[in-house]
């Protein structure tokens, strides 16, 4: 793991040097800004309650942003290395496959976190410019951030895996979008099926429900375990996919 740091640094720097990352960030901040505007307009009507943070973390816009942004952030990671052939110089350096995969994942996750940082200003704005003394509670807000981080971490690992399967960035992004969309809509199973088993499964796997809980400030360990193990599993599969490609 000695080489993890330089690899991670290069990966993060590559984001800041590519135009796609800026376009994606702008798109993300515009959508989140719109969510914030909705939140503020509800607060103006004086309806501030415990569930108000869901306007920021549980809205359609939040999910739209997450489902679009993640594939765009991860599509490049391994696919582009394979297309340009830099995979060859990377893999002939004394690095393990796990090091490379983890550094790439860490780079993507760091950029994802960096993308969220400007939204911290929302809390400050509400505090500073509201007539009420405490228009929002920080607990639910932290819960919302935790949820965004966990779900983002899992989605990014799925994106990294998709990127390891192809040489083409577009194919990688489409694959990731399809898989994430599928995973997202599993959460709506209870609405379309009467089968109790499917309903229970849907409830457990519903990212929307998890976000609604967390943005109320209810931190349940079950979704945390789900997303962490999911991330770990996807990273493991990615390492195996990279390894196996040498043998073909």
């Amino acid at each position: 793991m000695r080489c993890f740091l330089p690899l991670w640094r290069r990966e993060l720097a590559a984001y800041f040097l590519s135009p796609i990352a800026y376009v994606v960030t702008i798109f993300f901040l515009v959508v989140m800004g719109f969510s914030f505007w909705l939140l503020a307009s509800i607060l103006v009507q004086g309806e501030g309650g415990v569930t108000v943070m869901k306007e920021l973390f549980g809205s359609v816009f939040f999910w739209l942003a997450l489902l679009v942004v993640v594939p765009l952030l991860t599509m490049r990671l391994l696919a582009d290395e394979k297309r340009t052939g830099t995979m060859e110089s990377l893999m002939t350096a004394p690095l393990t496959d796990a090091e490379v995969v983890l550094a790439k994942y860490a780079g993507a996750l760091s950029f994802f976190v960096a993308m969220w940082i400007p939204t911290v200003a929302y809390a400050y704005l509400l505090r500073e410019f509201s007539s009420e003394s405490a228009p929002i509670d920080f607990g639910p807000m932290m819960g919302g951030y935790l949820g965004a981080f966990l779900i983002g971490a899992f989605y990014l690992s799925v994106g990294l895996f998709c990127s390891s399967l192809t040489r083409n960035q577009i194919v990688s992004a489409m694959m990731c979008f399809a898989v994430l969309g599928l995973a997202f809509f599993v959460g709506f199973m209870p609405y379309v099926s009467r089968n109790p088993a499917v309903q229970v499964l849907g409830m457990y796997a519903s990212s929307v429900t998890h976000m609604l809980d967390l943005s109320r400030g209810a931190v349940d360990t079950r979704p945390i375990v789900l997303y962490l193990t999911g991330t770990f599993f996807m990273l493991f599969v990615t390492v195996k996919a990279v390894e196996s490609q040498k043998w073909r």
Partner: protein
Amino acid sequence: MIKVSHLTKRFAGCTAVNDVSFEVGRGEIVGFLGPNGAGKSTTMRMLACYLPATSGSILVTGRNVLSDSLEVRRRIGYMPENVPLYPEMRVDEYLRFRARIKGVEGSLIRKRVHEVKELCGLKDVGRRLIGQLSKGYRQRVGLADSLVHDPELLILDEPTIGLDPNQIRQVRALIKDLAQRHTILLSTHILSEVEMTCQRVLILNEGRIVASDSPENLKSLLQSGSQIVAEMRGPREEMYEKIRTLPRVQRVAAYELDSWVCFTIDCEKDADLRIQIFELAVRHNWELRELRIGKKSLEEIFVALTRGEPEEVLP
């Protein structure tokens, strides 16, 4: 340094490398020569631990490339074909990054990067973006990258492809320079390059080694007889007949150059017929403007080895 035994690599439906065995000693410059698709790159990729072999074994400095891969990779500087680089990075930045991931100690990185930049003529472009460099400079960055951790063995896949003649000359000089400290294995399909830079040539064809020797030995080995080139002016048919019937002549080929006829005469081994040909010309009053011993180039040998007989030029 390198010991390859019975190396075979099969891809779906084709055998790229077929039962290849060879050894490379410390300090040698060995050239891989072969037509496109002969298995040069595949062999090099296997040596560089990028592709695993289907069967057979590779030892580099006594270590197996499969079981001791990281240790082997630390000792190899590998420059892939077409030199893949990150276009968004600056030259300095890239070399420092490569030095770091190849395990060069932190305190030595600055010094090593400086050294390889000097060696490869990159001093003036350290701040430039790799994506904006010309092909020749990119090639040098690739070479600098393969040298940055001071490897014992350099594996260069087509190091001069796509360069202009001046740059080719520079890269060749650089390779010769490097040979004093490193063992070098390079591949090429340009024959003169091997003749100029390598001490030993391995000729590959269709995944097999068809010859392995020094360029000079290969030439003499394949030159069973000697060859004389003569350019004369006179009655064509008569000249051709007279030369063909000289003693110890095996074969005569002729083609016309303006009003001159250029004969290529294959003789028996060690036969020098220049005097006889000169006398022939004097006796029949033919004009003679060139008379010399012809040397088969490595190119002809290459063609002979990889395609069968060289094409004959008949009158």
